C-alpha cells in the first residue's frame, strides 16, 4: 500500500531527476544551423574550384545549401569548423539532414568528425562516408582505420537523416541512417576500434563532397540541417 511518505519520496526523486536532466541539458553545448542565412558557424572553402552556396528550399526542408563541383577533377567544397578544434572525448553527437544528387557516380562525401580538407585523405575521423552510392561509417586514428561491417546503398535525389554518436567514454561510435522526416531506421552499425581520442588526434567537424571527373558545374550534395552536441565536455553550470 502506498503511503504518504512513499509518495513524498517519489515526488522528491522525480524532482531530483528533473533537475539532473536540466543540468545535463545546460551542460550540453549545442551548435545548430538550418542554413537559413550565411551566419552558419562553419567556414566554407572551395576544393579545386568547386563551391558551396544556397539552393532552392523544398517542402519540410527550409534553408538548403549545396556543394557543387567545377569542371576540374576532384572538385567540390567543404564546410568545416576550425582545424583541430575538436578532440573527441566521448558524448559527441551530430545529426545531419542531407540530400543525394541526381547522379552519384564519382561522388565522394564525408560528414561528421574528421580532419579531411579534400574528402580524399584524412588521418583521424568518426564520420559517414558516401562513395558513389555506398554509405559506410568510418573511424580512423592516426591513419589506422575501421569501416562498418555493413553498408547502405543510397538512392539518388533522396533526403536522409544521419546520426553519428560517440558514447560517453568514447569506446564506440554508432551510425544511424533514417528515412526523411521519419523514424524509419534504414541502417545502423557501430565501430569500437580506431576511435581518435589521443593527444595529437584532434580533428574538426566537416561536411564535404567532391566529384572525381565532373564535366561541368554539378551539384554533389545538399544540406538542410545540422546539429552538433557535446554532451560530456566541461561543465558550464
Amino acid at each position: 500500500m502506498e503511503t504518504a511518505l512513499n509518495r513524498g519520496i517519489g515526488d522528491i526523486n522525480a524532482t531530483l531527476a528533473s533537475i539532473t536532466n536540466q543540468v545535463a541539458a545546460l551542460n550540453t553545448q549545442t551548435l545548430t544551423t538550418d542554413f537559413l542565412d550565411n551566419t552558419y558557424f562553419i567556414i566554407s572553402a572551395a576544393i579545386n574550384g568547386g563551391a558551396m552556396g544556397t539552393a532552392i528550399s523544398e517542402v519540410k526542408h527550409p534553408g538548403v545549401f549545396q556543394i557543387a563541383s567545377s569542371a576540374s577533377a576532384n572538385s567540390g567544397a567543404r564546410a568545416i569548423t576550425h582545424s583541430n578544434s575538436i578532440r573527441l572525448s566521448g558524448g559527441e553527437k551530430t545529426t545531419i539532414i542531407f540530400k543525394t544528387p541526381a547522379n552519384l557516380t564519382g561522388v565522394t562525401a564525408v560528414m561528421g568528425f574528421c580532419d579531411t580538407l579534400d574528402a580524399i585523405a584524412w588521418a583521424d575521423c568518426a564520420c559517414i562516408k558516401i562513395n558513389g552510392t555506398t554509405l559506410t561509417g568510418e573511424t580512423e586514428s592516426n591513419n589506422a582505420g575501421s569501416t562498418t561491417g555493413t553498408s547502405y546503398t543510397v538512392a539518388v535525389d533522396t533526403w536522409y537523416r544521419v546520426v553519428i554518436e560517440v558514447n560517453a567514454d568514447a569506446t564506440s561510435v554508432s551510425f544511424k541512417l533514417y528515412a526523411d522526416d521519419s523514424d524509419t531506421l534504414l541502417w545502423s552499425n557501430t565501430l569500437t576500434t580506431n576511435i581518435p581520442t589521443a593527444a595529437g588526434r584532434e580533428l574538426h567537424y566537416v561536411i564535404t563532397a567532391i566529384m572525381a571527373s565532373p564535366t561541368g558545374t554539378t551539384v554533389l550534395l545538399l544540406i538542410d540541417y545540422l546539429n552538433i552536441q557535446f554532451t560530456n565536455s566541461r561543465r558550464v553550470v
Partner: protein
Amino acid sequence: MIYFYDDNGKYIGCRELLDGESVPSKATTVELVVLDGQEAYFVNGAWEVNTINVAPVAVTIEPTTEEVLDELITLLVDKGVIY
C-alpha cells in the same frame, strides 16, 4: 537485399537483410536494378523505373573564405599595403 521505399513508393535505398531479420514495413525483397540518374517507384508489387529529368540548377555561389581572402590580398597588394 531489401529495398526501401517512402510513403509515395519512391525507392530510397537498399541493404543486405540481416540474419534473422524480417522484412521491415515499407521495404521489399523484389529485386531492383536502378542506374545513376534513375528513380524507381514500388507500384502494385513491382518496380517502375524512370529517368530523372534534371533541371538546370542555378548554383548561387557564395564567396568562400578562400575567395574573400584572395580578393583582400589582391586589394592590399594593389594598394601597396603589403608586398
